[in-house]
Protein backbone atom coordinates (compact mmCIF):
# COMPACT_ATOMS: atom_id res chain seq x y z
CA UNK A 1 0.00 0.00 0.00
CA UNK A 2 1.17 3.49 -0.87
CA UNK A 3 0.09 6.39 1.35
CA UNK A 4 0.70 10.00 0.33
CA UNK A 5 0.87 12.54 3.15
CA UNK A 6 -0.04 16.08 2.13
CA UNK A 7 -1.39 19.30 3.58
CA UNK A 8 -1.50 22.19 1.15
CA UNK A 9 -0.14 24.60 3.74
CA UNK A 10 3.52 24.22 4.60
CA UNK A 11 4.45 23.58 8.23
CA UNK A 12 1.20 21.79 9.04
CA UNK A 13 2.98 18.58 10.01
CA UNK A 14 3.40 16.46 6.86
CA UNK A 15 6.84 15.25 7.76
CA UNK A 16 5.81 14.65 11.38
CA UNK A 17 2.88 12.52 10.19
CA UNK A 18 4.80 10.70 7.46
CA UNK A 19 7.82 9.85 9.62
CA UNK A 20 5.72 8.70 12.57
CA UNK A 21 3.43 6.65 10.37
CA UNK A 22 6.40 4.82 8.86
CA UNK A 23 8.04 4.39 12.27
CA UNK A 24 4.81 3.05 13.78
CA UNK A 25 4.57 0.55 10.92
CA UNK A 26 8.06 -0.67 11.76
CA UNK A 27 8.90 -1.66 8.23
CA UNK A 28 8.29 0.73 5.36
CA UNK A 29 9.70 2.64 2.44
CA UNK A 30 9.72 6.36 3.14
CA UNK A 31 9.99 8.64 0.09
CA UNK A 32 10.62 12.33 0.66
CA UNK A 33 9.12 14.17 -2.30
CA UNK A 34 9.35 17.55 -0.60
CA UNK A 35 12.49 18.00 -2.66
CA UNK A 36 12.92 21.72 -2.02
CA UNK A 37 13.35 21.06 1.69
CA UNK A 38 13.58 17.31 2.34
CA UNK A 39 13.53 17.15 6.12
CA UNK A 40 12.59 13.52 6.68
CA UNK A 41 16.22 12.44 6.59
CA UNK A 42 16.91 14.61 9.64
CA UNK A 43 14.67 12.27 11.66
CA UNK A 44 15.77 9.01 10.06
CA UNK A 45 19.48 9.73 9.80
CA UNK A 46 19.77 6.88 7.28
CA UNK A 47 22.93 4.76 7.05
CA UNK A 48 24.79 3.58 3.96
CA UNK A 49 23.48 6.45 1.87
CA UNK A 50 24.10 6.30 -1.87
CA UNK A 51 23.49 9.21 -4.17
CA UNK A 52 22.41 9.28 -7.78
CA UNK A 53 22.19 12.37 -10.00
CA UNK A 54 18.90 13.41 -11.58
CA UNK A 55 19.28 15.01 -14.96
CA UNK A 56 16.92 16.58 -17.40
CA UNK A 57 17.33 16.87 -21.15
CA UNK A 58 17.94 20.21 -22.79
CA UNK A 59 17.96 20.79 -26.56
CA UNK A 60 21.18 21.78 -28.32
CA UNK A 61 21.14 23.12 -31.86
CA UNK A 62 23.53 22.30 -34.68
CA UNK A 63 24.07 25.63 -36.45
CA UNK A 64 25.31 23.77 -39.56
CA UNK A 65 21.99 21.96 -39.96
CA UNK A 66 19.52 24.61 -38.72
CA UNK A 67 17.87 26.46 -41.61
CA UNK A 68 15.79 28.77 -39.43
CA UNK A 69 12.38 27.27 -40.24
CA UNK A 70 11.28 27.81 -36.63
CA UNK A 71 9.30 24.58 -36.46
CA UNK A 72 10.73 24.05 -32.98
CA UNK A 73 9.90 27.59 -31.82
CA UNK A 74 6.32 27.28 -33.04
CA UNK A 75 5.94 23.83 -31.50
CA UNK A 76 7.11 24.71 -27.98
CA UNK A 77 3.99 25.40 -25.94
CA UNK A 78 6.10 26.62 -23.04
CA UNK A 79 7.84 29.21 -25.26
CA UNK A 80 11.23 28.00 -24.08
CA UNK A 81 12.69 28.58 -27.56
CA UNK A 82 13.19 31.79 -29.50
CA UNK A 83 14.88 32.51 -32.82
CA UNK A 84 16.76 35.80 -33.09
CA UNK A 85 19.62 36.96 -35.30
CA UNK A 86 19.44 33.70 -37.25
CA UNK A 87 20.10 31.52 -34.21
CA UNK A 88 17.83 29.50 -31.91
CA UNK A 89 18.07 30.20 -28.18
CA UNK A 90 16.81 27.96 -25.38
CA UNK A 91 15.76 29.05 -21.89
CA UNK A 92 16.62 26.08 -19.68
CA UNK A 93 14.38 27.00 -16.76
CA UNK A 94 11.37 27.31 -19.05
CA UNK A 95 12.06 24.04 -20.94
CA UNK A 96 10.02 21.04 -19.75
CA UNK A 97 12.30 18.53 -21.51
CA UNK A 98 9.45 17.09 -23.59
CA UNK A 99 11.73 16.43 -26.57
CA UNK A 100 9.18 17.84 -29.02
CA UNK A 101 11.61 20.26 -30.65
CA UNK A 102 13.86 17.39 -31.72
CA UNK A 103 10.86 15.48 -33.10
CA UNK A 104 9.53 18.32 -35.25
CA UNK A 105 12.86 19.54 -36.64
CA UNK A 106 12.86 18.60 -40.34
CA UNK A 107 16.65 19.02 -40.51
CA UNK A 108 17.60 16.84 -37.54
CA UNK A 109 19.38 19.86 -36.10
CA UNK A 110 18.22 19.39 -32.51
CA UNK A 111 20.23 17.19 -30.18
CA UNK A 112 20.14 16.69 -26.43
CA UNK A 113 22.41 17.48 -23.56
CA UNK A 114 21.80 16.51 -19.97
CA UNK A 115 21.70 18.94 -17.13
CA UNK A 116 21.86 17.95 -13.45
CA UNK A 117 18.86 19.27 -11.53
CA UNK A 118 19.21 17.32 -8.28
CA UNK A 119 19.99 14.00 -6.64
CA UNK A 120 18.18 11.05 -5.14
CA UNK A 121 19.65 9.66 -1.92
CA UNK A 122 18.88 6.18 -0.67
CA UNK A 123 19.75 4.69 2.68
CA UNK A 124 18.36 2.59 5.51
CA UNK A 125 17.58 3.01 9.16
CA UNK A 126 16.36 -0.04 11.03
CA UNK A 127 13.70 -1.46 8.71
CA UNK A 128 12.94 1.84 7.02
CA UNK A 129 14.24 2.33 3.50
CA UNK A 130 14.68 6.07 3.14
CA UNK A 131 14.55 7.69 -0.32
CA UNK A 132 15.18 11.42 -0.46
CA UNK A 133 14.79 13.66 -3.49
CA UNK A 134 16.96 16.77 -3.32
CA UNK A 135 16.38 19.56 -5.80
CA UNK A 136 19.40 21.65 -6.76
CA UNK A 137 19.03 25.14 -5.29
CA UNK A 138 17.77 27.58 -7.90
CA UNK A 139 16.01 25.03 -10.09
CA UNK A 140 12.48 26.00 -11.08
CA UNK A 141 10.85 22.62 -11.59
CA UNK A 142 10.78 19.98 -8.85
CA UNK A 143 8.99 17.41 -11.00
CA UNK A 144 12.02 15.55 -12.49
CA UNK A 145 13.51 14.96 -9.01
CA UNK A 146 10.13 13.85 -7.61
CA UNK A 147 9.74 11.37 -10.48
CA UNK A 148 13.22 9.99 -9.87
CA UNK A 149 12.61 9.62 -6.12
CA UNK A 150 9.30 7.84 -6.72
CA UNK A 151 10.72 5.47 -9.30
CA UNK A 152 13.54 4.58 -6.89
CA UNK A 153 11.21 3.93 -3.96
CA UNK A 154 7.90 2.67 -5.28
CA UNK A 155 7.24 -1.06 -5.34
CA UNK A 156 10.24 -1.71 -3.11
CA UNK A 157 8.12 -2.77 -0.17
CA UNK A 158 4.63 -3.57 1.06
CA UNK A 159 4.10 -0.19 2.68
CA UNK A 160 5.30 3.05 1.13
CA UNK A 161 4.85 6.46 2.73
CA UNK A 162 5.24 9.48 0.46
CA UNK A 163 6.04 12.78 2.15
CA UNK A 164 4.62 15.29 -0.35
CA UNK A 165 5.62 18.88 -1.03
CA UNK A 166 3.38 21.72 0.16
CA UNK A 167 0.97 23.46 -2.21
CA UNK A 168 -1.45 21.91 -4.65
CA UNK A 169 0.34 22.34 -7.98
CA UNK A 170 2.25 20.07 -10.36
CA UNK A 171 4.79 18.74 -7.80
CA UNK A 172 1.95 17.61 -5.52
CA UNK A 173 0.00 16.00 -8.36
CA UNK A 174 3.14 14.14 -9.38
CA UNK A 175 3.68 12.96 -5.80
CA UNK A 176 0.17 11.58 -5.21
CA UNK A 177 -0.36 10.03 -8.64
CA UNK A 178 0.67 6.53 -7.52
CA UNK A 179 -0.87 6.70 -4.05
CA UNK A 180 -3.61 4.32 -2.92
CA UNK A 181 -4.59 6.63 -0.07
CA UNK A 182 -4.11 10.32 0.72
CA UNK A 183 -3.57 11.28 4.35
CA UNK A 184 -4.29 14.99 4.68
CA UNK A 185 -2.68 16.93 7.52
CA UNK A 186 -3.96 20.25 8.78
CA UNK A 187 -3.80 22.61 11.68
CA UNK A 188 -7.11 23.78 13.14
CA UNK A 189 -6.75 27.26 11.64
CA UNK A 190 -8.42 29.18 8.80
CA UNK A 191 -5.22 29.04 6.74
CA UNK A 192 -4.74 25.32 7.40
CA UNK A 193 -8.33 24.54 6.46
CA UNK A 194 -8.25 26.66 3.31
CA UNK A 195 -5.17 24.97 1.88
CA UNK A 196 -6.17 21.50 3.06
CA UNK A 197 -9.50 21.92 1.26
CA UNK A 198 -7.58 22.71 -1.94
CA UNK A 199 -5.54 19.49 -1.81
CA UNK A 200 -8.63 17.57 -0.73
CA UNK A 201 -10.35 18.70 -3.94
CA UNK A 202 -7.29 17.72 -5.91
CA UNK A 203 -7.11 14.23 -4.39
CA UNK A 204 -10.82 13.67 -4.99
CA UNK A 205 -10.41 14.77 -8.58
CA UNK A 206 -7.70 12.13 -8.91
CA UNK A 207 -10.05 9.55 -7.39
CA UNK A 208 -8.04 8.97 -4.20
CA UNK A 209 -9.62 8.01 -0.88
CA UNK A 210 -8.76 10.60 1.78
CA UNK A 211 -8.63 10.91 5.55
CA UNK A 212 -7.57 13.72 7.86
CA UNK A 213 -5.04 14.15 10.64
CA UNK A 214 -5.54 17.30 12.71
CA UNK A 215 -2.24 18.45 14.15
CA UNK A 216 -1.58 20.78 17.10
CA UNK A 217 -5.18 20.83 18.21
CA UNK A 218 -5.97 22.87 21.31
CA UNK A 219 -9.73 22.70 20.81
CA UNK A 220 -11.95 21.62 17.92
CA UNK A 221 -12.09 24.32 15.24
CA UNK A 222 -15.74 24.60 14.19
CA UNK A 223 -15.22 25.51 10.49
CA UNK A 224 -12.92 22.52 10.10
CA UNK A 225 -15.37 20.17 11.85
CA UNK A 226 -18.15 21.51 9.59
CA UNK A 227 -16.04 21.02 6.49
CA UNK A 228 -15.26 17.38 7.37
CA UNK A 229 -18.93 16.62 8.13
CA UNK A 230 -20.16 18.33 4.98
CA UNK A 231 -17.55 16.79 2.66
CA UNK A 232 -17.54 13.36 4.27
CA UNK A 233 -13.85 13.57 5.15
CA UNK A 234 -13.08 11.17 8.01
CA UNK A 235 -11.00 12.55 10.89
CA UNK A 236 -8.56 9.74 11.60
CA UNK A 237 -6.37 11.26 14.25
CA UNK A 238 -6.19 14.37 16.44
CA UNK A 239 -2.76 15.28 17.76
CA UNK A 240 -3.02 17.69 20.67
CA UNK A 241 -0.87 20.79 20.94
CA UNK A 242 1.96 19.58 23.17
CA UNK A 243 5.23 21.22 24.03
CA UNK A 244 6.84 17.80 24.35
CA UNK A 245 6.16 16.97 20.69
CA UNK A 246 7.73 20.23 19.55
CA UNK A 247 10.74 19.51 21.72
CA UNK A 248 11.22 16.02 20.29
CA UNK A 249 10.84 17.47 16.81
CA UNK A 250 13.53 20.05 17.52
CA UNK A 251 15.81 17.24 18.73
CA UNK A 252 15.21 15.29 15.54
CA UNK A 253 13.58 12.49 17.54
CA UNK A 254 10.79 10.31 16.17
CA UNK A 255 7.89 10.86 18.56
CA UNK A 256 6.33 7.37 18.37
CA UNK A 257 9.61 5.87 19.55
CA UNK A 258 9.27 7.82 22.79
CA UNK A 259 5.53 7.74 23.28
CA UNK A 260 3.80 4.36 23.26
CA UNK A 261 0.31 5.89 23.33
CA UNK A 262 1.08 7.96 20.26
CA UNK A 263 2.52 4.90 18.55
CA UNK A 264 -0.71 3.03 19.23
CA UNK A 265 -2.67 5.90 17.69
CA UNK A 266 -0.60 5.87 14.49
CA UNK A 267 -0.83 2.09 14.32
CA UNK A 268 -4.62 2.29 14.62
CA UNK A 269 -4.69 4.96 11.86
CA UNK A 270 -2.64 2.74 9.60
CA UNK A 271 -4.95 -0.22 10.20
CA UNK A 272 -8.02 1.93 9.52
CA UNK A 273 -6.78 3.04 6.12
CA UNK A 274 -5.87 -0.51 5.14
CA UNK A 275 -2.13 -0.56 5.80
CA UNK A 276 -0.44 -3.04 8.11
CA UNK A 277 2.00 -2.64 10.93
CA UNK A 278 4.80 -5.13 11.55
Amino acid at each position, binding site marked *: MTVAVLSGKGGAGKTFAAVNLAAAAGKAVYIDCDVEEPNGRLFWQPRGVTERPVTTALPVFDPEKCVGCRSC*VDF*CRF*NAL*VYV*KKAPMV*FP*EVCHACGGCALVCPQGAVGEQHRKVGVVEEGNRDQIHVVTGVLRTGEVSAVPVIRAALSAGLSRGDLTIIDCP*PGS*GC*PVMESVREADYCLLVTEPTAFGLHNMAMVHQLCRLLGKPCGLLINREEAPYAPLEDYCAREGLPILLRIPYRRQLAQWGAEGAVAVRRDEALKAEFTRLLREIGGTAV
Partner: protein
Amino acid sequence: MIVAIPVDEDQKSLCPSFGRAPWMMFSDTETGAQKILENPAAQAQGGAGLKAAQFVADQDAAALITVRCGENAAKVLKAAGIAIYQSGAPEAAENLAALRDGRLSEMTRFHPGFVGGQP
Protein backbone atom coordinates in the same frame (compact mmCIF):
# COMPACT_ATOMS: atom_id res chain seq x y z
CA MET B 1 13.45 53.14 -36.49
CA ILE B 2 10.51 51.01 -35.39
CA VAL B 3 9.47 51.42 -31.76
CA ALA B 4 7.32 48.79 -30.04
CA ILE B 5 4.97 49.67 -27.17
CA PRO B 6 2.72 47.19 -25.31
CA VAL B 7 -0.70 48.84 -25.08
CA ASP B 8 -3.94 48.10 -23.26
CA GLU B 9 -7.42 47.39 -24.62
CA ASP B 10 -7.90 51.10 -25.46
CA GLN B 11 -4.85 50.82 -27.79
CA LYS B 12 -3.54 54.12 -26.41
CA SER B 13 -2.29 53.64 -22.86
CA LEU B 14 0.65 51.45 -21.91
CA CYS B 15 -0.10 48.00 -20.53
CA PRO B 16 1.93 47.39 -17.35
CA SER B 17 2.65 43.84 -18.53
CA PHE B 18 4.89 43.45 -21.55
CA GLY B 19 4.32 39.77 -22.20
CA ARG B 20 0.59 39.73 -21.60
CA ALA B 21 -0.38 43.08 -23.15
CA PRO B 22 -3.38 42.55 -25.45
CA TRP B 23 -1.96 44.77 -28.19
CA MET B 24 1.47 45.78 -29.42
CA MET B 25 1.89 49.17 -31.09
CA PHE B 26 4.64 49.57 -33.69
CA SER B 27 5.56 53.13 -34.68
CA ASP B 28 8.01 54.10 -37.40
CA THR B 29 9.79 57.23 -36.15
CA GLU B 30 10.94 58.20 -39.68
CA THR B 31 7.66 57.90 -41.57
CA GLY B 32 5.21 58.31 -38.68
CA ALA B 33 3.45 55.12 -39.79
CA GLN B 34 1.80 53.22 -37.00
CA LYS B 35 0.22 49.80 -36.71
CA ILE B 36 -1.36 48.03 -33.78
CA LEU B 37 -1.16 44.25 -33.82
CA GLU B 38 -2.62 41.66 -31.52
CA ASN B 39 0.03 40.33 -29.16
CA PRO B 40 0.22 36.58 -29.88
CA ALA B 41 1.72 35.99 -26.41
CA ALA B 42 -1.18 37.52 -24.46
CA GLN B 43 -2.85 34.16 -23.79
CA ALA B 44 0.31 32.01 -23.66
CA GLN B 45 0.28 29.22 -21.08
CA GLY B 46 3.79 30.12 -20.03
CA GLY B 47 6.78 32.04 -21.31
CA ALA B 48 4.62 34.98 -22.44
CA GLY B 49 7.53 37.41 -22.13
CA LEU B 50 9.71 35.23 -24.35
CA LYS B 51 7.02 34.90 -26.99
CA ALA B 52 6.27 38.63 -26.92
CA ALA B 53 9.98 39.42 -27.28
CA GLN B 54 10.14 37.09 -30.27
CA PHE B 55 7.15 38.88 -31.78
CA VAL B 56 8.72 42.32 -31.28
CA ALA B 57 11.98 41.09 -32.83
CA ASP B 58 10.10 39.64 -35.80
CA GLN B 59 8.52 43.04 -36.46
CA ASP B 60 12.05 44.47 -36.84
CA ALA B 61 11.66 46.82 -33.91
CA ALA B 62 14.82 48.63 -32.83
CA ALA B 63 13.41 49.86 -29.53
CA LEU B 64 10.81 48.93 -26.94
CA ILE B 65 9.16 51.31 -24.48
CA THR B 66 7.63 49.46 -21.54
CA VAL B 67 6.53 49.82 -17.93
CA ARG B 68 8.38 46.65 -16.92
CA CYS B 69 10.17 43.74 -18.51
CA GLY B 70 11.24 40.32 -17.25
CA GLU B 71 14.79 38.98 -17.29
CA ASN B 72 14.12 36.33 -19.93
CA ALA B 73 12.42 38.73 -22.32
CA ALA B 74 15.27 41.20 -21.78
CA LYS B 75 17.79 38.51 -22.81
CA VAL B 76 15.95 37.93 -26.08
CA LEU B 77 15.56 41.64 -26.78
CA LYS B 78 19.24 42.25 -26.08
CA ALA B 79 20.24 39.35 -28.33
CA ALA B 80 18.08 40.88 -31.04
CA GLY B 81 19.74 44.27 -30.51
CA ILE B 82 16.56 45.96 -29.34
CA ALA B 83 16.97 48.86 -26.89
CA ILE B 84 14.59 48.74 -23.89
CA TYR B 85 13.36 52.09 -22.56
CA GLN B 86 11.58 52.75 -19.29
CA SER B 87 8.24 54.42 -19.97
CA GLY B 88 7.81 57.92 -18.57
CA ALA B 89 4.09 58.53 -19.03
CA PRO B 90 0.82 56.57 -19.18
CA GLU B 91 0.07 57.20 -22.88
CA ALA B 92 1.95 55.70 -25.84
CA ALA B 93 1.97 59.02 -27.75
CA GLU B 94 3.60 60.89 -24.85
CA ASN B 95 6.28 58.22 -24.61
CA LEU B 96 7.08 58.40 -28.33
CA ALA B 97 7.49 62.17 -28.01
CA ALA B 98 9.68 61.72 -24.96
CA LEU B 99 11.85 59.18 -26.78
CA ARG B 100 12.23 61.54 -29.74
CA ASP B 101 13.33 64.34 -27.38
CA GLY B 102 15.80 62.06 -25.64
CA ARG B 103 13.90 62.16 -22.35
CA LEU B 104 13.59 58.39 -21.83
CA SER B 105 16.33 56.35 -20.23
CA GLU B 106 17.20 52.73 -20.94
CA MET B 107 15.80 50.21 -18.50
CA THR B 108 18.33 48.79 -16.06
CA ARG B 109 16.14 46.72 -13.74
CA PHE B 110 14.38 43.61 -14.94
CA HIS B 111 12.07 41.53 -12.78
CA PRO B 112 12.75 37.78 -12.39
CA GLY B 113 9.59 36.93 -14.28
CA PHE B 114 6.65 34.80 -13.32
CA VAL B 115 7.72 31.50 -14.87
CA GLY B 116 7.06 28.64 -12.45
CA GLY B 117 5.24 31.08 -10.19
CA GLN B 118 2.63 28.49 -9.33
CA PRO B 119 4.19 26.31 -6.62
